[in-house]
């Protein structure tokens, strides 16, 4: 049957639409002129200027610290939540699921302002601590759903068999659940990490003096700073994200055989 060319044309246009702005941004970061207009020759001076900005380094440090803490806490909370939802299909777990699902659909700005009001009401000083609390909240929801997705392929009979054979829960967790769920938990943790590194709006609402993260820095330099270095900063940021994502993929692929062996 002859298919219409229309879907193909739209798809190519959409892919161009997706990639052109980013490619032009990367090219612009090596361009000797402002705002990526006409090409004025290759330069690395924007990158050199980046290195001298001390604020970037402290922002990177803050970002990584927040991401690390929120990834660890949300991975533990989310894995536990997914497990209990999978294991007990009671009314409580339906409510549990609903509460976990809601933060994913609520616009970021609502979550940001509601958390800000909570912290103001409790007179908690805004800073890295409040950013971490906020990030743990939304990351937990994502980890839960990712791990819950993996649990759909999980064979409960293995756990039941181990229980019948007199194995203790600690041993079951260590030698059955963690190895089998490992890739799922790692995927959830990776997602939590990237979401935390990337978050701007919620962080913007709950940040305080001295708690500038990278997205906050990018935002303020977009608004007030010199536009020339931002292209370079964005390119570095993109390269970092790419490294995290690709290494995550490699990590997961390497674990794949273990999973296949089990199933």
């Amino acid at each position: 049957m002859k298919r219409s060319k229309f879907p193909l044309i739209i798809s190519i246009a959409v892919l161009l639409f997706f990639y052109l702005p980013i490619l032009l941004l990367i090219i612009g970061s090596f361009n000797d002129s402002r705002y990526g207009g006409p090409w004025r020759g290759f330069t690395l001076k924007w990158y050199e200027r980046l290195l001298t900005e001390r604020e970037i380094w402290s922002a990177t440090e803050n970002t990584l610290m927040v991401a690390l803490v929120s990834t660890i806490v949300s991975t533990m909370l989310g894995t536990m939540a997914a497990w209990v939802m999978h294991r007990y299909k009671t009314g409580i777990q339906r409510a549990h699921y609903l509460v976990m699902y809601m933060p994913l659909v609520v616009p970021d700005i609502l979550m940001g302002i509601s958390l800000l009001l909570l912290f103001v009401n409790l007179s908690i000083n805004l800073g890295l601590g409040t950013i971490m609390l906020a990030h743990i909240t939304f990351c937990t929801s994502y980890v839960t759903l990712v791990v819950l997705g993996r649990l759909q392929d999980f064979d409960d009979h293995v756990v039941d068999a181990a229980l019948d054979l007199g194995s203790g829960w600690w041993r079951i967790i260590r030698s059955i659940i963690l190895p089998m769920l490992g890739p799922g938990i790692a995927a959830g943790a990776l997602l939590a990490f990237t979401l935390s590194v990337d978050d701007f709006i919620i962080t913007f609402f709950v940040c305080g003096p001295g708690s500038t993260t990278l997205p906050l820095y990018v935002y303020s330099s977009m608004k007030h700073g010199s536009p020339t270095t931002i292209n370079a900063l964005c390119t570095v940021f993109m390269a970092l994200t790419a490294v995290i994502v690709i290494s995550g993929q490699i990590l997961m692929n390497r674990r794949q055989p273990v999973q296949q062996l089990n199933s």
Partner: protein
Amino acid sequence: MKQKSKSYIEWLLTLPSFGWLAFFFIVPTIIVFAIAFKPAGVNGGIGEGWTLESIRNLIQPSYPEIIFRTLWISLVTTAACMFLSTPVAYWLALQPAKRRQWLTLLIILPFWTNFLIRIFAWKTLLHAEGWLKHLLVAVGLVHPDTILLYNSGAILVVLIYTYLPFAILPIYAAAEKFDFSLMDAALDLGSSRLRAFVQVFIPGIKMGLFTALMVVLIPALGSYAIPDIVGGASSEMIGNKIAQRTFVDRNLPHASALSACLALAVLLPMIISILTKDSRLMKKGGGKKV
């Protein structure tokens, strides 16, 4: 006895995550609705007692315009995303399995970059010295004095750019499960290609379209950063007003009243989505039992 210890374990495992979300999600949401009825205090705090002042302020002349603009920008974005992603999903679903995998990766890849960076990329593109401006002037489509940035049009383009992959993925997931022999059957029976697409394919991917609608419309209604960076003073959305009341005026009750409005606007499609999802799950579960 066993039942009892089981429910005790269930509670022990449920409590940390449920408690966390209750404290950091449910309680703050209730606070937003409560503070909307509080007076503004001195120094940007929250005053004593209760008042309807912030709610009454919502009928200020500038608000209906902003609410209306937020609605139409979000709806046009959603419509454009769905219109563009349906043919893409259709095309993707017809590709060989191996190629499909890397094509989906190709679609998701640019969206691993920070969303501020993507907005900034568009800002430089639309800027008076940017590539797009130069191109459009060279082709003769726009006058050299036209400003492409800081208007509703710029917001629309960047919103579509940001949310398009989120629309493609659910529609593609539905299209992948669609039985394309139904299309062939319709064509064999003399239907035109367009008619088969509209009357056979579109109903077949209904659920995917519905999910796409939700994942674009809800965040679009709450946009803040995009109108803030590429929009101007005359193209503010509700999100900008909330931030302005919070950070510039330091009027938290007022910001709360606006947020409560936005929450209600978002809640409505969300409840519908959860209800339809639940009934679908129940149907599935019921089917298994039989």
